[in-house]
């Protein structure tokens, strides 16, 4: 979309103040999403160039495996374009050169007249409340970010959402209804029509929202949008309605195609690629709505704003086959681009590598520049393709290139572990990952579960204690789900009940056990198995121990039979069938402090058949039933629990706890 006059004014005002300001200073541009931060940053680039400064624009893909790769390559290609990187590019793109060395090199090349413009800096890494979940790359990015901000070798301008930070900053207010400054391209009339219907001013909407509403009005009609205004409560909702309107209409099919595909490209794209992504139905009109109202443009390259990129509709709109086709198309497109060369060919190659890696391809001819790029490939091979052996090779390479790479070590261990391959290498990989990053609950839970799975329960206990000491659930409740849950789950499934209970007892507050179904199931399971171990079992697993001893039976025993009232009922399990006799185990409810009392008794074939609608002949060992007694002379009725399986525990990951035994031929 064309840039609004108001933003141009802002850039004109801010540019000189940065240029005339001290050379070692940071500026923060704050504003909510949709207020034009990225566009302003782009405008500043031009402004600062005009004032003989050397701006470098960094906008790496967010929270990706290769965020660090792109940040570093953008910095490198930016420096090179200013003639500041002479021959060192070879080291930057050499995957064997450690990250730290590359950063030293890049930061060392910065001069006082550089201005590093960082778009949406805070989202380069994962949220700070959960640093433990940062993969390796996020530590790389964080490291680069810190160096840029703290070493103050040059001016740094970055955009972020508003916060209470007192540093010098530049606020972007919300759009105040002064439409004159915004450009709607060829759709100004539609905007005015809409604004008239709604009643100007469009109070409280952002630049992005004003344009999005206009696009929606183009796709439907100003009357339609006006009739729904303001029944949405946030930007996501408007985006959702807009997407729905687009997908319902044949006319805008090409626009839908573009908007579902473009988010998968992480770099700014050419007009030509827009056409490719729009497909066969990408009309001139579709293209105008996209470029005039929806996408941001800089130097003839287009980017998709966050709200359109990250909406749920985008995730749901392509089936996996279409997604695969898309990545293939993109891989081929970038291959051609790379071959054509250019100023920032390394960025194109890294993007090509990403699409190739997402496909699980290992030999599409894109060069590897950074070890972290391998993680997208490893993940596809492991999680999508289930080709764990191939993933092992990738992660082995990743840790060889970057030995301090905890993520690579962990997933090397994981992919070996899934295959029950080389317990020794698995062990050292898991341990190395923890040594490099003790704060990651998954690293601990998978390591502890490896020990349990391979029968090293004593070590599992001591590692559990170490994990608890290393991790602080108060700071991150997610630890209960990532550490306690998988460990307790495997222990329960391995009938290590006391240890499982110890793990569950560490969950604080204990209400979590009741509130979260997965914890609740495990907790119930442990109680049922403990009772079975110390006494016996008279209820099937589907009945929660909380409900064992209700006053009423659980099955459909009538309250009276043959004119006689139900005076008592007992649960039972068929312990054995011996000829014409069923040997039962039953129990009386717990009394005060004493536990349930279990007893054995028998029923003959005749008694059973008289008391039940089912036949004795069909009765098997371990069936659960309930027996009701009617009147003082002991007339009985019997109801059986269905003969069914119970499988209510969370799936394990790695999924098969028997894998090592199967591999040895000790289990089928």
């Amino acid at each position, binding site marked *: 979309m064309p840039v609004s006059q108001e933003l141009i004014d802002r850039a004109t005002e801010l540019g000189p103040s940065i240029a005339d300001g001290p050379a070692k200073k940071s500026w923060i541009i704050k504003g909510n999403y949709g207020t034009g931060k990225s566009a302003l940053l782009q405008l500043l680039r031009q402004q600062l160039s005009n004032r003989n400064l050397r701006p470098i624009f960094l906008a790496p893909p967010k929270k990706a495996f290769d965020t660090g790769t792109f940040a570093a390559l953008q910095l490198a290609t930016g420096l090179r374009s200013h003639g500041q990187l002479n021959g060192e590019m070879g080291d930057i793109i050499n995957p064997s050169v450690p990250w730290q060395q590359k950063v030293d090199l890049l930061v060392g090349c910065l001069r006082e007249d550089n201005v590093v413009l960082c778009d949406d800096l805070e989202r380069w890494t994962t949220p700070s409340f959960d640093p433990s979940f940062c993969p390796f790359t996020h530590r790389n990015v964080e490291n680069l970010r810190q160096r840029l901000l703290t070493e103050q070798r040059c001016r740094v301008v970055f955009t972020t959402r508003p916060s209470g930070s007192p540093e010098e900053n530049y606020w972007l207010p919300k759009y105040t209804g002064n439409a004159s400054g915004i450009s709607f391209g060829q759709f100004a009339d539609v905007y005015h029509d809409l604004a008239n219907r709604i009643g100007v001013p469009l109070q409280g909407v952002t630049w992005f929202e004003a344009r999005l509403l206009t696009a929606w009005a183009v796709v439907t009609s100003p009357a339609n949008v006006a009739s729904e205004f303001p029944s949405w409560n946030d930007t996501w909702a408007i985006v959702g309605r807009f997407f729905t309107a687009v997908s319902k209409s044949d006319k805008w099919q090409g626009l839908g195609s573009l908007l579902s595909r473009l988010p998968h490209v992480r770099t700014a794209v050419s007009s030509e690629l827009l056409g490719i992504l729009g497909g066969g139905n990408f009309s001139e009109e579709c293209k105008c709505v996209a470029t005039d109202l929806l996408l941001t443009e800089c130097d003839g390259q287009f980017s998709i704003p966050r709200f359109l990129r990250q909406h749920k509709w985008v995730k749901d709109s392509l089936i996996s086959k279409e997604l695969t086709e898309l990545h293939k198309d993109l891989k081929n497109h970038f291959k051609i681009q790379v071959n054509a060369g250019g100023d920032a060919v390394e960025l194109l190659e890294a993007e090509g590598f990403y699409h190739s890696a997402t496909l699980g391809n290992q030999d599409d001819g894109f060069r590897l520049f950074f070890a972290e790029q391998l993680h997208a490939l490893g993940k596809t091979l492991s999680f999508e393709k289930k080709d764990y052996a191939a993933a092992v090779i990738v992660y082995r390479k990743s840790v060889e290139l970057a030995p301090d790479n905890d993520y690579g070590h962990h997933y090397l261990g994981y992919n070996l572990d899934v295959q029950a391959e080389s317990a020794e290498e698995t062990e050292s990989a898991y341990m190395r990952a923890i040594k490099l990053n003790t704060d990651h609950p998954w690293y601990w839970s998978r390591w502890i579960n490896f020990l349990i799975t391979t029968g090293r329960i004593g070590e599992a206990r001591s590692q559990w204690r170490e994990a608890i000491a290393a991790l602080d659930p108060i700071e991150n409740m997610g630890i209960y789900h990532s550490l306690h849950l998988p460990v307790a789950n495997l222990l329960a499934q391995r009938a290590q009940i006391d240890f499982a209970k110890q793990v569950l007892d560490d969950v604080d507050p204990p209400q979590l056990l009741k509130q979260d179904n997965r914890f609740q199931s495990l907790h119930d*399971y442990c109680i049922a198995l403990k009772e079975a171990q110390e006494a016996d079992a008279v209820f099937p697993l589907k009945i929660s121990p909380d409900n064992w001893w209700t006053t009423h039976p659980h099955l459909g025993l009538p309250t009276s039979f043959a004119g006689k009232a139900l005076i008592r009922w007992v649960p039972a399990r068929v312990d054995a069938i011996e000829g014409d006799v069923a040997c039962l185990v*039953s129990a*009386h409810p717990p009394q005060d402090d004493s536990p349930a009392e279990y007893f054995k008794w028998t029923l003959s074939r005749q008694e059973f058949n008289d008391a039940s609608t089912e036949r004795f002949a069909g009765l098997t060992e*371990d069936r659960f039933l309930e027996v009701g007694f009617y009147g003082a002379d*002991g*007339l009985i009725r019997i109801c059986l629990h269905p003969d069914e399986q119970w*499988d209510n525990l969370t799936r394990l990951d790695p999924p098969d706890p028997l894998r090592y035994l199967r591999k040895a031929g000790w289990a089928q």
Partner: protein
Amino acid sequence: MMQPKQLEDDRLYMFVFGPGFGESIAIRIPPNDWVVVDSCLVGGSAAAKHPIAQYGGQLSCLVLTHPHRDHYPGFDSLLELGQWDVLGASDTTLDIDYQKTANPKKRLNATLEQVMSTYLQQWTIRPQCTWRTWRGATKKIGVATLTSVHPDEKWAQANAGANPNNLSSAILLEWEGVRLLLGADVENPFWQEITEKFDARLISQHTAAKVPHHGSHATSHSQGAIHKGWSAGDDNRNWVVTPYNKGRGLPSKEDGEGADQLLDSVSVLALTGLPIRHSAQQDSPCETTRQAWRDGTKPKPITIDLPGDRVGTLTQTHDSSLKCYVVFSFTADGTQYPPHYGPGSIQIRNEES
């Protein structure tokens, strides 16, 4: 007499636990080697842990005779006690029939996965601890020798789906002048084969025996475990039977069956316990006759009344006391000392006829 206060240095002790579900044998070979065969839970934990914890000693040899659910409860915690010099087992394949059952009792079978995982790991990293207890395989523990008398490796491998009892490892332990027959759950017709393969006198002329397969007798669907190959001999041999509580239970107390047949060969039969609660739970020993036991006069089962003249028999549950065991001890020359009878165990003779 309950548990010995301390163990005499020069005696071999044989602790046999059997609470009604499962059995475990813990043998202390002088001076301080422990050999443990199978596991069951007594007093809330693995039975064999009690004597090992009380008297101390070396974790020398641990054997799982067969992967049957009455032989491994608590076995995982025995493995966790420390590093055993020898880990014995013949059949290491798991029958995984419990993964989706709604019966929590059967889900406990998953402990076997833990046991087998530890075996696999230990046998891999410490091959010297491996003892595949196929017939004829021996292990030296101090000056004692353990010899597996069953199952035959070739037969077992050709009959992987056979009744697990018949894949179980019966073991002969020889120490100086003492010979112990640990019969596991081996049933007939295999005792005939065993006496043919080994010197028959070795099998029958034992000092003490853990009677095979809970003293089962021949019925319409089982050949039982009683066989003259091991049963014929002196009537002063020390025999202990562990009961099995499923259905009507083992050993049978009826005339001409189980216990009665065993008492044809020995004058006293020790039973580690009864699967039910009974009146003589605290007597030690509860001396009785098979007939009194059969008739329910001594010990008397503790029953509860259900409506309509129905009667249930209380089982032993939620009991954390150490019970249901018998302890034999011998010096090197074969001298027997008075056995120790734990709470719940009974000592049975036949009435003078």
